[in-house]
């Protein structure tokens, strides 16, 4: 189904990146999917969607999908009565008819005819089994990141996608974010604005209030799931069901849950996988949890710029440092990317060529210079570097009109979902197919291991390949 020269059949970062840079926004037609064939024969051009899992993350995805025309939500599958009912009613409120509802995905895939797509937003340890089942059933799949809680699970997803010939997009939504794409394609590669990239740094620091166990003091009766069903689907109890991110058998923990988003950007922008990593981690506050509550990791890359070193931290006990962002540091500029515009910026090194032409051509907008700090006692002025000039990083999310006519910023996940559904229609190519998501995620699977062993890990080709 896919063009063998593109998408999931293609391997290697450089070829992928070259393709993306050539095709971004071009809307290439790569295949002739069934959707188009049906429309050509006078059938419906609706894409029939199954929502697999309807927890918090699927709610976020569904809110974005509601803005995408041409989707019909045919089925909802979740083992929780509460989640399933919420999904059914949200779909009913949106499209005027309730979807079919299922507890079990096998039953759904067996009973439902005409499904085109599955959107998988289940706990991480179910991503791979659910995705593989749907691909093998002939569905195109959008699956939340992290691909799996194990690297073998992720490998199975790549193999299933390539064997099925179906599309499999992984939910690293920044890959379709206009600001990130603009930064990578126009500024870093196009204008080579950062000069030689030498270092990267990122963080996701989350406050204690945002890191508590879900479920509160008591779990309401309406939310409870029968114990036999919980056990059947791999959960020991309701605490595991609601807090699967805290358990080692069910997820990769904070470095996977939060860190994967940003380490993916490191690898994407650097067009390489790290050659080694070294992590240190601990349970500074949540001592009873299986996963670390703070993880710090060093990376080494060999890139087209030469050697690059990076540092990543995820902390779940403090929001220090302004939440979550990534820094790409080069000889001529530092680019700070984030999903939130207010946290994004680009800083010109004082010795770099002027950006006046770029401002004139509309590539950048200069921010007003901050007030000069007062001289501090003991400072030796001649040793201090001049403060870099700060510029806005363009490419914010565009506006979207909701069903009831309100104009709001496009939800952060919508561009990535749009890219997926456009690809299903044969009008685009995936921005984050399973193989390339695997290449980017693979190093992340070794971070907890490095912290456990308190030793660096050489990331050989064998470790990082499918």
């Amino acid at each position: 189904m896919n063009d063998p020269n593109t998408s999931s059949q293609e391997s290697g970062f450089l070829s992928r990146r070259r393709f993306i840079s050539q095709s971004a926004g071009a809307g290439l037609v790569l295949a002739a999917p069934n959707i188009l064939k049906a429309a050509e024969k006078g059938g419906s051009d609706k894409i029939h969607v199954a929502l697999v899992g309807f927890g918090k993350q699927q709610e976020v995805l569904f809110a974005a999908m509601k803005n995408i025309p041409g989707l019909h939500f045919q089925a909802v599958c979740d083992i929780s009565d509460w989640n399933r009912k919420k999904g059914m009613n949200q779909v009913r409120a949106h499209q005027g008819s309730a979807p079919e509802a299922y507890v079990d995905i096998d039953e759904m895939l067996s009973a439902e005819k005409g499904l085109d797509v599955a959107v998988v937003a289940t706990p991480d340890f179910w991503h791979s089994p659910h995705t593989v089942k749907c691909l093998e059933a002939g569905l195109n799949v959008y699956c939340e990141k992290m691909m799996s809680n194990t690297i073998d699970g992720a490998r199975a997803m790549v193999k299933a996608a390539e064997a099925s010939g179906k599309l499999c997009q992984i939910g690293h939504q920044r890959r379709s974010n206009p600001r990130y794409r603009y930064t990578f394609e126009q500024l870093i590669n196009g204008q080579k604005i950062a000069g030689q990239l030498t270092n990267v740094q990122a963080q996701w620091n989350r406050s204690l209030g945002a890191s508590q166990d879900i479920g509160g003091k008591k779990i309401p009766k309406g939310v409870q799931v029968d114990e036999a069903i919980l056990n059947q689907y791999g959960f020991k109890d309701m605490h595991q069901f609601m807090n699967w991110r805290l358990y080692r058998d069910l997820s990769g923990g904070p470095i996977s849950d939060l860190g994967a988003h940003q380490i993916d950007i490191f690898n994407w922008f650097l067009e390489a996988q790290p050659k080694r990593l070294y992590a240190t981690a601990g349970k500074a506050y949540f001592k009873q949890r299986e996963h670390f509550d703070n993880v710090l990791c060093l990376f080494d890359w060999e890139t087209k710029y030469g050697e690059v070193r990076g540092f990543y931290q995820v902390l779940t006990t403090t929001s220090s440092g302004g939440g979550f962002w990534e820094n790409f540091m080069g000889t001529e500029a530092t680019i700070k990317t984030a999903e939130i515009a207010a946290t994004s910026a680009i800083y010109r090194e004082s010795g770099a060529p002027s950006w006046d032409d770029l401002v004139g051509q509309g590539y950048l907008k200069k921010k007003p210079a901050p007030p000069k700090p007062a001289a501090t006692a003991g400072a030796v002025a001649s040793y201090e570097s001049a403060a870099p000039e700060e510029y806005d990083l363009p490419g914010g999310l565009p506006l979207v009109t909701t069903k009831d006519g309100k104009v709001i910023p496009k939800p952060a996940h919508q561009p990535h979902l749009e890219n997926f559904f456009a690809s299903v229609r044969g009008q685009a190519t995936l921005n984050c197919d399973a193989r390339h998501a695997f290449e980017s995620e693979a190093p992340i699977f070794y971070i907890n291991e490095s912290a456990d062993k308190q030793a660096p890990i050489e990331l050989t080709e064998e470790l990082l390949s499918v």
Partner: protein
Amino acid sequence: MKNKLILTTLTAFTSIALINCGGKDGGDEAGAKSGDATAGSASLGAGTEGGVVLETELPDELIEGTPKPIKLPVAHEDPTAAPQFKVPEGTVLLSKGKPVTSSDDAPIIGSLDLITDGDKEAGEGYYVELLDGLQWVQIDLGKESEIYAIWLWHFHSQKRAYNDVIIQISNDPKFEEGVTTIYNNDYDDSAGLGKGGFAPYAETRFGLLADGKGTKGQYVRLHSAGNTSNEMNHYIEVEVYGK
């Protein structure tokens, strides 16, 4: 509808929230234009002179998921403590366990009785979700009462602001006659119930406390029109205090 607007609101502001300013509709996620509709809006008064400070059991903070940027028409500060507001001695909680009706009689999830069940925790199972667009919930106190305060929690496990929060009191269950609006932050009258003078606010575990001013009525109706995270309407708890 005959509305009488009482321009007071009860929120305790002490720390600046990381919230962008902008209009209810439109603007990108970095929008930073101040609206004029709510500039200088009313703030919390002290309440009844010689009264007692109203207290309630506050829920714990529990934030879930990735924060979403939200847009409010004026710079906003989050509370760090419950408001200190005085009500006449002898004021009691009138709404616990009282029946609730709604413009959406088939909630998306949850049930209307959650609104007066006394549980204010964040998270699944503690809230009712109503359809998108302008929706209301209505509490029947059982008899006409003097209402001195209404304490409201929409949804506090994610920082978000609800649109067009309007609180009304009446003896008419249809709210066609004798309606008193005690709180309204619909700064552009998009709900069609009159332009409000109060500033939109971000949800926290401290909730929103509105001054009832001793208004007499049997019914309390609360309106909203979606929020900055999604189009739906949510309620965790509403407490009506009076005599």
